[in-house]
């Protein structure tokens, strides 16, 4: 089902935890759908110097959180905003089609945190227009049962 890379990130997730007095926090998802991602950012001079996450969710939710945090660490805020869910999925050697929504969630979590940062600091970033952190993310499940 999952690639080795997904399993590796799931078993050994990077950047788990919280940042005390973070510069930005974003949370997406809801318990109804079975996944919640919370992302904490430390931003210095428009560069993401630290990032931590907490995730309630399935294996791919945890793995995409881990990968997304890795991918934005050290990047500028604008670069982080350009992170696409596809890029996260590809970095994990792909996700099962039914799990692609997890990568969307990761992208949204980053966006949501940056939205928080922009709002607090009155900044404008390309790609944040029209972003609504409270909007429901696209959610497709499927599978089989016994």
């Amino acid at each position: 089902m999952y690639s080795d890379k997904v399993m590796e990130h799931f078993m050994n997730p990077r950047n788990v935890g919280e940042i005390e007095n973070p510069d930005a926090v974003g949370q997406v998802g809801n318990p109804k759908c079975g996944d919640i991602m919370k992302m904490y950012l430390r931003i210095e001079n428009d560069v993401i110097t630290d990032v931590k996450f907490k995730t309630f969710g399935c294996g791919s939710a945890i793995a995409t959180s881990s990968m997304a945090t890795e991918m934005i660490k050290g990047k500028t805020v604008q670069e982080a905003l350009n992170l696409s869910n596809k890029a996260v999925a590809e970095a994990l050697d792909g996700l099962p089609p039914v799990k692609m929504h997890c990568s969307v969630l990761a992208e949204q979590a980053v966006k949501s945190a940056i939205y928080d940062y922009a709002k607090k600091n009155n900044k404008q970033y390309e790609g944040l227009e029209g972003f609504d952190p409270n909007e429901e993310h696209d959610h497709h499940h499927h599978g089989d049962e016994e």
Partner: protein
Amino acid sequence: MKKRVYLDYSATTPLKQEVLDAMLPHFNASFGNPSSIYTYGRESKNAIDNARDIIAKSINAKSDEIFFTGGGSESDNWAIKGIAYGNKHKGKHIITSKIEHHAVLHTCEYLEKEGFEVTYLKVDEYGLVNLQELKEAIRSDTILISIMFANNEIGTIQPIKEIAEIANSKQVYFHTDAVQAFGNIKIDVKELGIDLMSISAHKIYGPKGTGALYIKKGVKLHQLIHGGAQEKKRRAGTENVPGIVGFAKAAELAHENFDEHIKHLTSLRDKLIAGLKEKIEYIHLNGHPTKRLPGNVNFSIEFIEGESLLLSLDMVGIACSSGSACTSGSLDPSHVLMSIGLTHELAHGSLRLTIGDFTTEEDIEYVINQLPPIVEKLRQMSPLYEKVKGGN
């Protein structure tokens, strides 16, 4: 080899060696079509007849009340659609419960689209239907009550005898999905007053793709699979002889040391429940404390999600299941867990461990040792947990 602890016996079971041994001759030595009159065919026919006797005896039915099918789902579909279409002149109302297996629920939903009416009885926090509500739901046009014997997720056992009595007193047919109960609870269809009952081989160490429907003599229903004259012209298709023989052998083994078997499962179950309760905070047993399948353990583990739990357990060789949406076929978590009143979080965070004949004390201890650190690790990652514990 890596340690493997299989605790998903309610999902499916491995074949017992005796079962495989019984099946093997029918693949290529005695492989004839049971409908054929020559020696090869008669051997197969005898094997099926013998299997039918064994299954019948195990539930105190007559041999000609047992009809072999391609599995529990087919049995459920046959019973419900068969009664519905076969009795639609009498009425178009069916009663079932909210916690049935999808083979029953989705069949009922289909029938609703085709013009039938279905009442889905709710259940209490333990998953039990309310007999008073059942009585009140029966209408003059009710043709069928279908209530499962024991639930596959939470293991709750329904008051089948009382339900059958109500159905019988109102002359409504009573079907029960006993796929999980068969082999784990003693069933006497005559004493219980059951009209139709679905069972499946692969839940009792028999082969996948074989099941049976018990149809009490005189019960009128349409066929689901038309064609050849097999199964007394009620279920067409060349009989799966090895499957049927294996099913019977499995049923025979299950009923051989029945009390021993139940005692074994129950004691392991209770040990596992006690062990996990002791070691892990914020967990809740789902289902009824005593009216439950001997091998069923189902916990909701707060703050974490089921799939990641299953994956983590799989990494240490433990195989089990969850009612989380992420492991099922739908957007929503288990309809059973929602029906007993769990929140979405708790339903997503459910863990089902089902014990079987090959489970050992050592397996149980292994789980009791492996699970707590996994839960702790996942909770440390969970944004829901920080609220309780005040972060890491």
